[in-house]
């Protein structure tokens, strides 16, 4: 019997002041919960989502077999973050396109869809909004906050903004800020979107179009950076386009002349399997993801830098955090490399905080944080076992 998930919505009419100075008058957050809040209200775990995910963290929707939450291997009954013991909360970030108030919604001030007018939101803003939801749910303190990648930044931010409300912070495949290379990748993705003729300065809804070309390219770039070279080679190598495109052709030959003829000798057509895969991923993404949301979320990634207010000194920045920490990184993750996690570990060590760090030797690159790796799931599971024991 799979875990059944049900989205819930909470409206906040009290305005939220954003880091940019803008104020959002009122907003709705979409969220899901799994498990039961205990009598002491002490077993809540907030799961923060990464770039293209949502509040749908675990379980399936009734009647939809293939609707598993994006972290279903990590969260659920009997899983590393066990919903039999914890009350797990997945919250969709403000500005997203999966149910919380975002650029696709109506701006009450103008009666028009926000579009390009949706204010820039930061990781800190998201955490403030999430904290308000906890107030509504009557949860003063979290047993843990957990996130990977951008979600890991939120988990870290939780420990800094609300130190008294976080007992444990689990930060996976993350970083204390983005490197110039990472910002560069984000910028290329954003330029792909904003230069799409269908973008219309972000107000494409009024024109009844979607900047799909830009979104496709943005996703293709992202996808390349989430994998490792080894995994891509193993998965696709130099294989030619998929067999369905070769329909009607003779089976592959081992005659060198025939093999050379298998090329299309075209610069426009799909030639290699990896191209086909990237185009497929890009197409799929452009069907469901909002262009303005993509811009907003990649900007939030760029801006995140808790050390900035401390002259770049991460140790001083993290002095406020009192939570216990678990950090996990993956050796082949070049977008959020282990060295970046070690910077956080070092700053926590210098503040004499409780911290453990696992560096998982996994081949999958950044994507590893969403995949099944017994060592990774084992460490996170063992950490949450400890938290559960401390609750009992």
């Amino acid at each position, binding site marked *: 019997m799979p875990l059944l998930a049900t989205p819930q919505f909470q409206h906040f009419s009290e305005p939220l002041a954003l880091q940019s100075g803008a104020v959002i008058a009122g907003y709705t957050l979409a969220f899901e919960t799994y498990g039961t809040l205990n009598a002491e209200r002490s077993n809540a775990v907030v799961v923060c989502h990464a770039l293209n995910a949502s509040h749908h963290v675990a379980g399936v929707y009734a009647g939809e077999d293939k609707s598993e939450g994006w972290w279903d291997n990590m969260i659920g009954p009997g899983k590393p973050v066990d919903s039999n013991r914890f009350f797990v909360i997945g919250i969709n970030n403000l500005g997203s396109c999966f149910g919380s108030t975002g650029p696709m919604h109506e701006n009450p001030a103008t009666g028009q869809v926000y579009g390009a007018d949706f204010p820039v939101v930061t990781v800190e803003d998201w955490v403030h909004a999430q904290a308000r939801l906890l107030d509504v749910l009557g949860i003063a303190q979290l047993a843990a906050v957990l996130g990977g990648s951008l979600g890991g930044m939120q988990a870290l931010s939780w420990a800094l903004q609300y130190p008294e409300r976080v007992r444990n912070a689990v930060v996976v495949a993350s970083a204390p800020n983005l490197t110039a290379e990472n910002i560069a990748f984000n910028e290329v993705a954003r330029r792909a979107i904003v230069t799409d003729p269908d973008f219309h300065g972000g107000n494409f809804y009024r024109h009844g179009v979607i900047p799909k070309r830009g979104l496709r390219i943005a996703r293709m770039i992202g996808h390349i950076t989430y994998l490792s070279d080894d995994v891509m080679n193993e998965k696709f190598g130099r294989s030619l386009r998929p067999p369905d495109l070769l329909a009607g052709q003779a089976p592959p030959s081992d005659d060198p002349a025939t093999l050379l003829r298998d090329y299309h000798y075209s610069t426009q057509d799909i030639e290699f399997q990896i191209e086909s895969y990237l185009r497929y991923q890009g197409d799929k993404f452009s069907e469901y993801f909002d262009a303005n949301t993509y811009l907003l979320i990649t900007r939030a990634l760029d801006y995140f830098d808790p050390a900035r207010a401390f002259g770049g000194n991460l140790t001083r920045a993290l002095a406020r955090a009192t939570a216990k920490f678990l950090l996990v990184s993956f050796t082949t993750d070049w977008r959020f490399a282990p060295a970046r996690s070690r910077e956080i570990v070092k700053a926590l060590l210098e503040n004499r905080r409780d911290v453990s*760090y696992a560096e998982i030797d996994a081949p999958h690159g950044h994507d590893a944080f969403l995949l099944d790796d017994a060592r990774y799931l084992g460490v996170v599971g063992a950490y949450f076992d400890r938290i559960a024991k401390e609750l009992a």
Partner: protein
Amino acid sequence: MTEKATMQALAALVPQGSRVLDLGCGGGAMLDYLQRERGCSGYGVEIDDANVLACVRRGVNVVQLNLEEGLAIFEDNSFDVVLQIDTLPHLRNAEIMLRETARVGRAGIVAFPNFAHWPNRLSVLRGRMPVTRRLPYQWYDTPNIRVGTFKDFEVLAHKNQLRILDAFGLQEGEVVRWLPNARAGTAVFHFERAV
């Protein structure tokens, strides 16, 4: 039983309430003991996945690092005591790690199998590398990339300007102070920087 006695003999060198760094902490048993019995706090450093998992299970702080890459993550004098229990024989850069131990800790405690223990000498005299409880591997499949003696360490410590606060042998968990180089399977050194 003797393992527990050995652990207790080593723990006795760690002052109450110390901040401890345990290099090559294994499954975290020593830190766990020091936390529970001597009110210490600290971290283990470990490379092996299964050991890291065991530490997390125990609730011992553990940082997964390769000691061969150094201790840059730790600041000078940031620990009261740095432990290297049976870690030294596994290190390619044993001398550098000894200096690093003295850098990050106000005091260091090193323990390792004493190759000059008499059964080992006897075995070598007979023409064979020893296989004992403390050195339980065949010469061709041992994880120890180096072996040394109680006396060898004295020389190395002197060379690196370490002041030896205490040194003794351990045999079956018992402290050996008379002829430790020949009579003890384990060499133990408690030291600090002389300069």
